[in-house]
C-alpha cells in the first residue's frame, strides 16, 4: 500500500524527474482547514491507485520555493505532473468522487 510521501523543496525535483507515471502533489500547510479535510481523501487515492499514480505532499510553510515556482496562491492546491510538466491543477478541497473525476485521465 503506497502512502503519501512528504517531500521538501530539496527533494521535489528528483521526485518529479524520477517518477515513471503521473505524480499528484498536494500543496498544503498546517493552518489550513480544507487541507486537513482533503488529506484522508488523498491517503485513500494513494492506496487505491498505487500502481498508477505517485502521491506526494509538500508543506508550503517549510518549503516555500516550489510553491512559488508554480505560483501556488491558494491551498490546498493539487497539481498533477506528467513527465515533469504540469498536466492539471485543482484548487480547493472536494469529495473523493469529484477528485477522482478531476483525475480520471491520469488514473486510467
Amino acid at each position, binding site marked *: 500500500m503506497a502512502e503519501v510521501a512528504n517531500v521538501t523543496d530539496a527533494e521535489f525535483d528528483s521526485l518529479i524527474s524520477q517518477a515513471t507515471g503521473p505524480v499528484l502533489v498536494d500543496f498544503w500547510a498546517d493552518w489550513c*482547514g480544507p487541507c486537513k479535510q482533503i488529506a484522508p481523501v488523498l491517503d485513500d487515492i494513494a492506496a487505491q491507485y498505487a500502481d498508477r499514480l505517485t502521491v506526494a505532499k509538500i508543506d508550503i510553510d517549510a518549503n516555500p520555493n516550489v510553491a512559488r515556482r508554480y505560483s501556488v496562491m491558494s491551498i490546498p492546491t493539487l497539481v498533477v505532473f506528467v513527465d515533469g510538466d504540469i498536466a492539471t491543477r485543482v484548487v480547493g478541497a*472536494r469529495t473523493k468522487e469529484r477528485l477522482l473525476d478531476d483525475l480520471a485521465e491520469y488514473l486510467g
Partner: protein
Amino acid sequence: MTDVRDVLIVGSGPAGLTAAIYAARANLSPLVIEGLGAGGQLMLTTEVENFPGFPEGILGPDLMARFREQAVRFGTEFITADAEAVDLREAPFRARVGSTEYAGRSLIISTGASARMLGLESERRLLGHGVSTCATCDGFFFRELPIAVVGGGDSALEEAIFLTKFASSVTIIHRRDEFRASKIMQDRALANPKITVRWNSAVEEMVGDAKVERLILRDTITNEKSELDVAGVFVAIGHTPNTSLFEGQLDLDANGYIVTQPDSTKTSVEGVFAAGDVQDHVFRQAITAAGSGCMAAIEAERWLEAVAHAH
C-alpha cells in the same frame, strides 16, 4: 444490509455535533455523516471570541475538535465523507455515501452553509490565482502585497483584520455606505491603519492573465468605474445553505433554507429535524447553531418515543 440507527445526523458543525452529544447521552447511538467539510465553517476561522466558556478565546478548529471529542466520548460514530443522496419519503430515512446506505429512524440535518461567490467569470478563472474564499488558508501568500476583501458583514471584517498581518494594505469593498457587521468588528476594522474602505462599490471584473492584477469597481450610486491594483481578493459576501440534497423532499424557503416550525427544529417531514445555519439565516452563530442542535436531539428523542408507543 442498510445500517439503521435511531438518530442519523448529516453535517458536523456546532449544530450537528451538539445534536450528537445529546443523542449519544440519551443512548440513541447516533451516526454522524460528517462530510468532507467536517467541523463546518469554524474550520476556516481563527480566533473565536464570543463562544461562552472560553474567556481567552479559542481557535475555531480547536473548538470544533473539542465538540467532536465530546461527541465521541459518549459513543457517537462518524462517517468522514459527504452524503450524496437522501431519501426522506418514509422512516427510516436514508442517506447514501458512495455505494453504502445509512438509515435513521429519525434524521437531523445540520449541513450548514457555504461561502457565496460573486459569480463573475473572471472570479472563477482566477480562483486559486489570487481569488480566495479562505483568508486563514491563503493570507500567507500575500505578504507585503495589496489585497481587497469584498463584503460588509462580520466575516468580511474579521478576514480583513486577519489579513493585515500579511498584506501591505487591505481595501474593503462594500456595496453600501454602512457595514452590517457588529459594532466591535467595525471599530476594530476602521481603527486599523492598514485598512481602507471603498463604500458604495461593487466588483465588476477581476483582471489578470495568470493571476489577479487589479479589480474594476463600479460605484453603486453613480455607476462610475474605477480600478484598484491588488494582488489578491478575498470574497466574503455571505453564505448559501447546503440544501441541494433536500430539494423536492423538504420545504425550503425562497433562499433555499430549510423551513422549520416556530420554536422547533421540525421540518415539513415528520421525524426529520434541521438545526444550525441550514435553517437559520438570521443569527448564524456557533452558539445558536449548538442550541438548535440540542433542540433537534431532544425533539428527535421525543419523536422516537412517540413512534415506539404508537406501535
